């Protein structure tokens, strides 16, 4: 299989901005898809399927591509994961399905993500509608937040006849799929199409409605039979170093969002950019900056390469894009001139004994401060929890774990019998990702279904990991 991806060279005069922000893996042609699909062994009890948090029947959907039943392939995917189009683009397949492919032992694993995208694109191009709203069962469910967990839960419930209203504080649904995934990984239309698909299932999505401001949990608990909370996480926290308020210091998520919602040539970028943090969001910020035209992009991380939270393939991608990494480097001050960023003062670090996270703790090297000249600093050091939400939920007796909403793993129910939660706002352990959020939505939909319609709910209506085994 031809490897299409050509590393981006810093030669903006050769490519238009639009070209630089196209999906970096071009779509498979029919022949490429069929050739790749035919490589799949169609394993029994396939490990790829077990590795998928939403348990997509991967061998079956791939076989359907190979036999020319691409419509059936798309249906197989969507039956397990309504957000199959987004997941095919953003899933960390290298550590999930493709990582567990039996061919990874001595061949190349099957390109499951790209095959899934092929089937999803096929269905999207033809506007195929696979599912209908279920026969109304008289129950009303409120979903707070139209991110992947909220959409998944809403869609699964609507398919089973629940009357679902989804409240979203932003202008568009889709959550981080819409606002937070770098555009050359997922064009915004893909996520918005998924929102439309959920709406077509009969889900009412009310945008620009914020919980606590326009509507309260008390109202929702009164008016609805169940409430699913999928509010995600908040902004990037402060670094708590001097100079953080200077012009040119940006929140990484906001930076990514600009590329999704604004014309690309309106976006300001620095010539020399420092990105703080070495997670996947940081990589997105750094590679966006490069593709916008930044000459030098440095990722600043206080630990070493071995501890960096970004996936290895993301790290490799950033290197190909010409991003530099400065490990064992701790920012201590943003230095400004005339209110604008001029440099980032950093301190060398060394690795000491393992800390609470099990990783070796960074220890400052005294007297090692130095300055990196730069005109933009982008922070990507995680996300704040929505404490105003958890405080409100506490009134319903709902507990938290490390600031995340506590839920029962099997049903995603909180301590309150009517309130369920899922997505990044419950991810007190494990990786936050779209596919995990989708599964959370399914688990909660099953939980709500069981709780309201009784234990007699048939197992085949419950497409979760547990029921498929």
């Amino acid at each position, binding site marked *: 299989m031809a490897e299409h991806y050509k590393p981006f060279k810093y030669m903006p005069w050769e490519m238009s901005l639009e070209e630089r922000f196209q999906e970096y893996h071009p779509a498979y*042609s*029919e*022949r490429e898809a069929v050739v790749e699909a*035919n490589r799949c062994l*169609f394993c*029994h009890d396939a490990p790829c399927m077990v590795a998928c948090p939403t348990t997509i029947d991967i061998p*079956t959907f791939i*076989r*359907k591509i*190979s*036999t*020319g*039943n691409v*419509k*059936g392939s798309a*249906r197989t995917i969507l039956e397990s994961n309504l957000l199959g189009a987004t997941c095919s683009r953003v899933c960390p397949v290298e550590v999930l399905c493709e990582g567990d492919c039996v061919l990874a032992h001595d061949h190349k694993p099957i390109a499951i993500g790209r095959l899934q995208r092929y089937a999803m694109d096929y269905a999207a191009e033809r506007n195929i509608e696979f599912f209908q709203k279920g026969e109304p069962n008289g129950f009303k469910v409120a979903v707070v937040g139209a991110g992947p967990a909220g959409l998944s839960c809403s869609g699964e419930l609507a398919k089973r006849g629940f009357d679902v209203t989804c409240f979203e504080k932003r202008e568009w649904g889709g959550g981080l799929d819409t606002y937070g995934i770098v555009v050359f990984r997922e064009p915004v239309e893909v996520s918005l199409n998924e929102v439309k698909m959920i709406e077509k299932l009969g889900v009412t999505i009310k945008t620009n409605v914020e919980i606590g401001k326009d509507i309260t949990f008390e109202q929702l608990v009164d008016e609805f039979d169940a409430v699913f909370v999928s509010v995600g996480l908040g902004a990037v926290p402060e670094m708590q170093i001097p100079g953080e308020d200077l012009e040119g210091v940006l929140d990484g998520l906001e930076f990514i969002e600009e590329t999704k919602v604004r014309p690309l040539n309106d976006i300001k970028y620095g010539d020399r950019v420092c990105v703080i943090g070495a997670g996947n969001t940081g990589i997105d910020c750094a590679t966006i900056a490069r593709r916008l035209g930044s000459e030098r992009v440095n990722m600043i991380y206080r630990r070493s390469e071995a501890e960096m939270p970004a996936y290895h393939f993301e790290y490799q991608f950033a290197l190909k894009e010409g991003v530099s990494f400065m490990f064992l480097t701790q920012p201590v001050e943003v230095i400004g001139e005339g209110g604008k960023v001029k440099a980032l003062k950093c301190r060398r670090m060394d690795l000491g004994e393992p800390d609470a996270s099990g990783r070796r703790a960074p220890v400052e090297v005294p007297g090692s401060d130095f300055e990196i000249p730069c005109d933009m600093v982008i922070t990507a050091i995680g996300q704040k929890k929505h404490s105003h939400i958890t405080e409100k939920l506490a009134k319903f007796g709902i507990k938290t774990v490390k600031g995340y909403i506590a839920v029962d793993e099997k049903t995603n129910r909180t301590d309150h019998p009517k309130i369920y939660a899922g997505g990044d706002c419950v991810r007190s352990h494990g990786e936050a990702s779209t596919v995990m959020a989708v599964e959370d939505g399914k688990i909660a939909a099953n939980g709500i279904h069981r709780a309201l319609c009784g234990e007699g709910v048939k197992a085949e209506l419950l497409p979760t990991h547990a029921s498929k085994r």
Partner: protein
Amino acid sequence: MANLEIDFCGIKSPNPFWLASAPPANSGYQVQKAFEQGWGGAVWKTIGAPVMNVCNRYGTIDYKGSKIIGLNNVELISDRPVDVNLREIAEVKRNFPNNAVIVSVMVESKKEAWQEIIKRSEDTGCDGFELNFGCPHGMSERGMGSAMGQVPEYTCMVTEWVMEVATKPVIVKLTPNITDIGFPARSAIKGGASALSLINTINSIMGVDLDSFEIKPNVGGKGGHGGYAGPAVKPIALHLLSSVASDPEVLKSGVPISGMGGIETWRDAVEFMLLGSTSVQVCTAVMHWGFRIVEDMIDGMSNWMDERGFKTCNDFIGKSLPRISNFGDFDLGFQTVARINHDKCIQCNLCYIACNDAAHQCIDLHDMKLKDVGNGNGRMFPVVREKDCVGCDLCSVVCPVDDCISMVEIETGRPHTTWNELSKKRPEITQEWDKMEAYRDEVGIHIH
């Protein structure tokens, strides 16, 4: 949603997909598992005379990295006693009353033996019988299987014996190991068969090991012919199916046909049905991947039918059969030429060398600078000399790029006549070379 149900001479099946009489249909456990996963019917592995199996039983052809494009076997009919099989058949039919359960039988060439096994099998509640006149190895040497199917008189005689006692539909399974399959097909109908099925496996030697000189499959240092099946035999099966399905006597009798031979996907199944199969049988693909492949077969066929607006299988069974014709009736005025899409061409120039070495030398290599489609790599592009192109299609079949070389129909003004018409009207043209040359000049055919 399309309705896939079929009625096969009274045998009802929820869909046209049946397990062929073969190892996957060897036991109650297997057949019930298959039905649970969606198979519409099963022809039980042949029961009958006592046998002893050998090993190894299977040989395969792998082709350029793909496993099992062809599989042969020297396994015999069921090696479990008849009463064990009958007990399980009865149990399966009881548990799955809506699925088709057909008992395949084969005994020595004695009237009493055939009639007895049919009578015993009827008690299982099965839906019908398939007479195995096709097994080409092991049994044929004992005068059974293809030894019967290769002699039309025997086919007719045994069918008659069976029809005397059978109260349920009887399918006669034909062997492909015969010069003209029409003969046994007509004999079966003469004998009163309710239906036909084809093809059984083809005589074959799978290969020879270059190091040990052993035959594949190797049975303790020896090897021999076995029955060949799998994707590679599909074209042979389609031909034999079409010739039986379009045989005037078969058409007149109206008996349905169950087709098999290399069916692996819903697309294969559709092709068999377009050429006249009412049901289709599958073995090798199940031996490769298991019963679960039926899910896509049902889903894919159903989606295809929906797209085409076919409500039931009868809407398309036999739809391509009227197109089956003889060479003498082909249109001699139909002309195609190859057109190369140079925007798609990747300059492998396989079309050039194929045409030049193996066809009619009507592709040239050109420097395409004038047309400005070159990528500046200095390589030449293949260009068809259209006036010389004979329309053989070789360039287009070797081209590795989809839709790059297309065969386009052109109007030459030549008369749309056939060889048969020509032989009738102007017989001298079809008999003498100089008259043929003159006729070609007359209609403007120039062979360079």
